[in-house]
């Protein structure tokens, strides 16, 4: 049954349908816009490396989800890029820890592009030859990321934080792990995860929602398929396995990242915790906070200090970081700020202000079609109602925000990774 939801204060309307085969479809109708965006997303990311299908435990090499994302663009007639290009669409795809998504933007020929998207994602076609060829391209992609120091630093931090959870393994895998991937591996993982009931189709633009539902019904397989059950390893304790790693790197100034594990969450609890954390961290460590402005003025933070909470399947994490000539002074000030929140809580006026700002950021993010499509898919996979966070603002207060910080960010649980400039 099609559900229509109007959000007048946000100027948004959503058309939602779940097909008989379990595919969730969410369409954000945007009258008067030329651009149209469609996301075909799979609840499958790099952390779902090991899984059970039926009775069988399958351990796949690191980097399969991403490898599959590259190779699905091949079909028996060649690459699907051409079909998109002829209809003026620019297709792309990404693999994250917990999602693989194929998407396109176009202004014309939306129906034809949507058909191409639905068909190619559901049609695996791999040969040993094409898999071997792709390995060369992905090896270059791995090297490109290995040259990005922010990515190296985060990877170093994860290796301090996590013992079992696969988030510590790079999304792309390694040169060694991708050498173990064959056409068969890709077929196995496609059949395990690319089931309509494990997927979502999200669309933003001036489109006819009924036509989107009809196309999806016609081009996705009927019937439910058995779902793969991912295994994220033995549950982690909140303490890190190592509290600090420092390495030399080709950076101009020291780069600091630090963080801790937090308890995982699901559904509406995840949505609330994400919003509470965003407001709380904004009030305590954001641009108008004494923490940030004092460090900025003393030259201890150069451009920005970022801090956020991220929830993934089987884990949650708090992460923060900046570039600083003296990372330890930033850490000291961070610890003092935490202590202050423990003793005094978050100031009510600060919270009110940051709440208004966060509302503005969220409202404006609805302007980006990519961001809407991503958020709708995330809502479908995490099990919360899309756009429902706007209704939560009124009920969030400084006590809840202070408690969130005190309960989740404990100095003893923090792990730190620093990249120091090489002495030459």
């Amino acid at each position: 049954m099609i559900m229509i939801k109007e959000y007048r204060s946000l100027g948004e309307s959503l058309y939602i349908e779940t097909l008989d085969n379990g595919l969730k479809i969410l369409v954000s109708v945007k009258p008067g816009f030329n651009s149209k965006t469609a996301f075909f997303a799979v609840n499958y990311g790099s952390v779902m490396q090991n899984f059970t299908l039926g009775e069988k435990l399958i351990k796949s090499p690191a980097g399969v989800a991403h490898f599959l994302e590259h190779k699905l663009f091949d079909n028996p007639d060649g690459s699907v890029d051409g079909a998109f290009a002829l209809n003026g669409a620019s297709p792309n795809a990404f693999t994250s820890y917990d999602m693989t998504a194929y998407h396109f933007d176009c202004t014309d020929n939306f129906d034809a592009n949507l058909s191409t998207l639905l068909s190619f994602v559901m049609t695996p076609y791999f040969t040993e030859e094409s898999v071997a060829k792709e390995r060369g391209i992905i090896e270059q992609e791995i090297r490109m990321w290995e040259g990005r120091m922010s990515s190296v630093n985060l990877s170093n931090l994860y290796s301090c934080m996590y013992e079992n959870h696969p988030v510590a393994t790079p999304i792309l895998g390694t040169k060694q792990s991708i050498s173990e991937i064959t056409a068969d591996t890709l077929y196995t993982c496609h059949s395990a995860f690319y089931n309509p009931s494990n997927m979502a189709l999200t669309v933003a633009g001036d489109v006819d929602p009924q036509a989107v539902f009809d196309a999806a019904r016609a081009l996705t397989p009927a019937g439910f398929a058995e779902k793969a059950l991912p295994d994220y390893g033995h549950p982690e304790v909140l303490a890190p396995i190592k509290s600090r790693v420092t390495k030399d790197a080709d950076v101009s100034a020291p780069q600091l990242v630090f963080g801790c594990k937090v308890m995982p969450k699901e559904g509406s609890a995840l949505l609330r915790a994400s919003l509470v954390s965003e407001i709380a961290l904004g009030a305590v460590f954001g641009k108008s906070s004494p923490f940030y402005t004092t460090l900025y003025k003393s030259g201890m933070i150069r451009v920005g200090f970022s801090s956020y909470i991220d929830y993934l399947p089987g884990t949650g994490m708090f992460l923060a970081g900046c570039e600083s000539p003296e990372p330890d002074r930033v850490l000291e000030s961070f610890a003092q700020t935490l202590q202050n929140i423990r003793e005094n809580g978050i100031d009510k006026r600060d919270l009110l202000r940051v709440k208004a700002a966060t509302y503005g950021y969220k409202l404006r993010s609805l302007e980006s079609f990519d961001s809407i499509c991503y958020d709708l898919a995330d809502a479908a996979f995490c099990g919360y109602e899309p756009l429902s966070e706007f209704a939560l603002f009124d009920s969030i207060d400084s006590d809840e925000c202070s408690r969130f910080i005190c309960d989740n960010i404990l100095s003893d649980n923090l792990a730190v990774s620093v990249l120091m400039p090489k002495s030459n």
Partner: protein
Amino acid sequence: MLIDKRDLLPGVRLIYVNTDKFKTGVFSVWIKSALDSNTAAAHAVIPHVLLRGSKSLPDMEQISAALEEMYGSSISPINRKIGETQYVGFLSSFPDDKFLPEGTKVAAPVISLLFDLLLRPNTHGGLLLQEYVNSERDKHIEQILSLKNDKGAYAQIRLLDKMFEGEAYAISAMGTAPEAKSINYLKLTKIYRELIQTAPIDIIYCGSMPIDDLLSVLTEELAVLPRTVIKNLPETEIKFPSEDFVPRTVFEDEDTEQEKLIVGWRLGDYMKNPDLASLMVFNSVFGGDMSSKLFVNVREKMSLCYNISSFVDRFKGVLFASCGISEDDYDAALSEIFNQLDAIRRGEISEFEMSAAIQSCVSSYRSVADSAYSMQSFILNQLASSQFMLPLELSELCMRVTPADLAGIADSVVLDTVYLMRDNKTSENAKDTDDND
């Protein structure tokens, strides 16, 4: 969507785009000057210093808090280079008033705050505060030094240094570390005053505010803008290579995980009468898209790289192609890049390639009007061009581009510089091996 252009003061023009389509409104002030190695860093630092405090909000906490109160509106420093002109100033964005609680208005207050920061800085004895200037100068120097952290972007900077030696185009909009080191509060105050008195200024607004309301805010705010003799901006110099020009090849060794290859060409005689639509379609066929010759051949067919793309700077009349490769693949990648350009020169452009490129350009111009940011960025580029065209006019022109037009561009292109950033670890190893031999 209504577009209005008008002069507000000597050298100050407003481009007003009225639309109620967006949740975000954008207002930007672009102060223009000739790119000059003596002032680029100082110009870049000025908006950062001004964002530290004004007379009414003397400290950064107060400014950040004021913006948060205005539902997370933002005022950010801008520093861009278009051709050989430097643009500095502020870009502000704010939620459209109609989506905020009844009676809340933020657009006009944000615009007023922007001018407060720009025109009424926190000063002592008429001078910018030494503390703010030194702090922002030091951060700017660190930022220049940190450009090395991203090797792909750094390779592009090094190519510009080599290819445009002696031309203003080589100057980075951030300036150089030595120039930045020479900044002090006395010098910066002088440069700031001169800039706001004499520089041509473009103001762009895109949002739902009626023009009369905007003009009344601007009239009040600009009343304190001191204007003297407005400087003329020199045109970007377009070089036409002589027939005996010998292309350069530059190898540099850096601590990089992946070798970066960048090729630079001049567009040659084509720049005597260039056509923007043809250049955009040309770039799309050559390396601008996933259906381009470079992507399909160098990446998909030969598996030599993950990322490869081309870029045309129409203001300077230059073309670049860049990719990340293994050093062993340098010859193969370079010769395939040349092969693909030669193919365009011979008119070997399939119907598919032509149609895909045209569709891509049409689509990107048609989507400009879907966001206030892309609209103001498009307008800024159009203002810098000799002819002001709207996105839809350009998309129609793209549809008329022919393969012969593209062959004409490729035929005029002259190779200038091949740049390869090598991995110094591999290079040293290679040297060790030679020594041992």
